[in-house]
């Protein structure tokens, strides 16, 4: 089993916990958690995770703003970012397609399959 380090940035505590359970228990990955965009950027810079799961709808600094900072900083721009969103409208999808994120994972997701989806997306 490949051990990976994944950062989950989500303002909702239950969603952070669900992602942590899925990735830690099923995949044995180390999961870092951040409750806001600002906190996430700090953790990403210091911990250099292998991937970031980023919730799009957050107060203050939302997913789009967080992604811009992550991609604009040489310390984090190489880290693949997967967007988490419950938005499924075509217009939203189109908007996300222009954000230059690696992929979009739609909520609700199956915590048992989350790690497999990430592995597939990132070729792990």
């Amino acid at each position, binding site marked *: 089993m490949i051990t990976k380090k994944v950062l989950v940035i989500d303002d*909702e*505590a*239950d*969603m952070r*916990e*669900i992602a942590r*359970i*899925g990735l830690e*228990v*099923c995949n044995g990955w180390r999961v870092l958690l951040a409750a806001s965009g600002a906190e996430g950027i700090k953790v990403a810079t210091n911990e250099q995770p292998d991937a970031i799961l980023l919730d799009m*709808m957050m107060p203050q600094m939302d997913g789009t703003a967080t992604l811009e900072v992550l991609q604009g900083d040489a310390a984090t721009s190489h880290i693949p970012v997967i967007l*988490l969103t*419950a938005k*499924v409208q075509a217009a939203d999808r189109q908007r996300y397609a222009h954000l230059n994120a690696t992929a979009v994972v739609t*909520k*609700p*997701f*199956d*915590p*048992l399959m989350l790690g497999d989806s990430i592995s597939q997306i990132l070729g792990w």
Partner: protein
Amino acid sequence: MRFLLVEDDPTISHTLGAALAEQFYVVDVAEDGQEGLDYTRSFTYDLVILDVSLPRLDGLSLCRQLRREKYTGPILLLTARGETEDKVRGLDAGADDYVVKPCTVPELMARVRALLRRQRSADAPVLEWGFLRLDPSSGQVTYRDRPVKLSPKEYSLLELLLRHPRRLFSRSAILEHLWSLGDFPGEETVKAHIKGLRRKLSLAGARDVVETVYGMGYRLRPGSEQLNEGGEQEAGDASARVRSALDRAWERFSSMIYDRLESLERVAAALGTANLLEADLARAADDAHKLIGSLGPFGLVRGSQLARAIESHLQSLQSQPPAIATVDSQLETQLETQTGSSPSSSTPHFPSLRDRPSYLQPSPVIQQALNQLLGDLRREIQNRQPLGRDRLLIGYIGSDPSWYHSLVAAASQGDAPMEVVMLEEPFTWDALPTSDLPGAIVMPWNDPAQPAVLAALLSLRRRQRDLVTIALVQRNDPAALMDLAQGGWDADWVVDQPIDGLIQALGQYQSDRRTMDRQRVLAINLPSPAVSLLRRCCQQQQWELACASQPQRVCATMAASRPDIIVLSAHGSPWDGVVWTRALRSDIFGGQRIPILVLAEGATSTTVHHLYQAGVASCLLDPLGVDPLIRALQDCLAQSLRPEIFKGWISSQ
């Protein structure tokens, strides 16, 4: 595998017997044809090896006789060099192959393996079950290419099961196959070897391969070959752990989810009133959005869908997008038509519809839909079932750790997912989330005065209605039983029950209990108010309900789909509950083992007595509501699922 070797030359029978035994085959030797025939009539053999020239009854006659007596296993003939005619006659007599004497042992073994292989549908020289492989030519067993070291008997057991992958073997059948005439082991020996085999396979990673069919025997667990492929067994374990972890997370986060639901309900109630601000609406839409993401992973997939629909409605009220504008325009048109004005009139009769925000003037269609969705969502959340309920948590209460260790060992060998935990005083169930509550309690009853324990168990039963409680009581200690009964513990008890049997019974119970998620209820001859009530119960529990009144229809319904429970009325014409119960217990209806719940409001004590005498599981004498009826149905179902082993049921209810 057990073979019969019919050979009158002691040198040959000794050499061949020893060579076969080295390959873990069990060999009985008969010295003449008649003895060989007698043996085959008394025992089951997987292969018969015959010499052609035999005293009393020659090999060819024996071969013909065996085929006449429907022996279907392979027969291998041993013929002398040059006796071509013998070979032909032997094959014509029903033999499957021949070996010319003197033959080498490797050649004979190769023939034996080939013959056994032909018995299997698959033609593979190596016996396989997923990643588990047994190579009869080398006597090697491997799992995922790693060797599994087995004792000779464990090896033979595994080979027997692998050669007949769909067959169920009773212990006596296994004894017959794997032990020779000189040995007289008891059935306990088979059990011990099965246990050893399971433990060694499990240590190698091949878990749950051998299944115990309670009261019947052993077989390869159907589907376990797939489970053990591709590491899916490991995935299965992880999945159980994830489900348990999610259940624990639900306990922590459900209050947050209820807060979001209540916020949505408040906004829906305030729609159209001046108390509602646009900001409240925006917050409610956010709450719905968050519920979309969080409900699904907790097993509430429909809840996520409902939340999405709610979000969409709330957003439409917020921003008045074209879709909703259309609804409102249609409404206006309708109203205008009703008031006789021209729809194309440029002067609106209801200027407020356009001037005021739509959340202050929501269309009745939207409002009704929203309320309906919220009602459904609340029900979904309230009825959430724990995801990890298929694991049975067994709590052990007692100061003697040896019982605890036996339980742990037995549970790890059992087929059902179980976990044994030692519970220590004080027992504070209230602090535990539902997913962490034990489903069974086992307790050696050696201390009659344990009021604290009894109180704790009663409080646990209040939260865990289908809890199984087991007291381990020595058979030679009837006084302890009296103490137990007097103590008011409404428990099952087990007298001197071996722990293995107990764990097996609990495993069976657990697997049956899982089926409680989708029950079939048959209502017979119920008055319409009772049917409506029952229908509401079934809708809430997502159980199937069928109704029938005429005997023919009842018979047909029961034959088409066996109900899990029958609900009757005590009263009725022309047949009352007693008559129905007696009839249902007959072979014609086939309802002997289906629990019957009787709605007996207003019934006399004599009627109730007759009902119980006829064999009903429970009578409800009080007027009913949905919740008490659901509880009564669940209790009846839970009781009916109890394994036979839990016969000593003392119930104060």
